[in-house]
């Protein structure tokens, strides 16, 4: 007989996300993840996809996220959870040498000036 109810966590990253320490856990409502803007979902998806692809170890991201959150709370920064998440992701991809700070600044400038207008995933 086929089993119907899959475990709610089916992949290793999911388990790690589910087990994230209370102090850095993802915003949830009714037990489910909440994204307040599409970019938050993208930032979330990038971190998870890179990890699933073996590009980094989840603990490396988690450690940076814990630092970002601790620092923001120490300085009473008004940043949101996903802004901190994004900052952690940026530090990780820079530390790993995946991209350089110059590349990010160049790309930001291209977007700001309208020189570049990628087909951004609108959901």
């Amino acid at each position, binding site marked *: 007989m086929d089993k119907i109810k899959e475990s709610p966590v089916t992949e290793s990253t999911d388990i790690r996300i589910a087990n994230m320490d209370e102090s850095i856990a993802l915003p949830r409502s009714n037990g489910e993840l909440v994204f307040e803007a599409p*970019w938050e979902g993208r930032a979330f998806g990038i971190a998870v996809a890179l990890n699933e692809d073996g590009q980094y170890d989840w603990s490396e991201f988690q450690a940076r996220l814990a630092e970002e959150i601790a620092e923001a709370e120490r300085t009473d920064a008004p940043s949101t959870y996903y802004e901190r998440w994004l900052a952690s992701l940026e530090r990780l991809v820079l530390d790993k040498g995946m991209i350089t700070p110059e590349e990010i600044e160049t790309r930001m400038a291209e977007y700001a000036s309208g020189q570049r207008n990628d087909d951004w995933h609108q959901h």
Partner: protein
Amino acid sequence: MSGQHHPEPESYAAIRARAIESLLVEKGLIASDAVDARVQAYEQDIGPLNGARVVAHAWVDPEYRTRLLENGTEAIAEFGYTGAQGAEIVVLGNTPDIQNVVVCTLCSCYPWPVLGLPPTWYKSHAYRARVVIEPRAVLKEFGLELDDVVEVRVWDSNSDIRYMVLPERPSGTEGMTEDQLMALVSRDSMIGVAKAKSPAQVG
């Protein structure tokens, strides 16, 4: 989440996230559709909040409850939730003696304006085939054991009618506000494979 485009300009963080993603994609370090897949997998769990709001309102407002059970589509539209691909939404009220359960035996018809995208198991062949034949056994696998006196009614959704279950209001919730009640309404309880949570379960 129906994903309307937002006309307001992108925030700094949004542009920065976009810059990082586009660079990673360009370098072949990440596949854009892999990000899509992850976002979608998690986003599908956001939708049920609309349904939870409808249920919580029906629990506190008997007149709304009556309207909801008489004409689900119209009562749900009072919250601005519309667009079930032209289908009617019929709301089924659970009672102490009746447990309603929703399935789509043919495919995966689902009241998505209130419940978001269906969970994977809802689309599985096992659920679609078995819940009709042995609903009690299936509900038991979801952790829902019913007394023998409770009648289980299985409703098969289709392209014209989408069903949603109105779970019973849990006991011990008399003093709770609508917002507090919403937290008790899980997606599974609106498909009918679970009861609404008790206040103790959500802490």
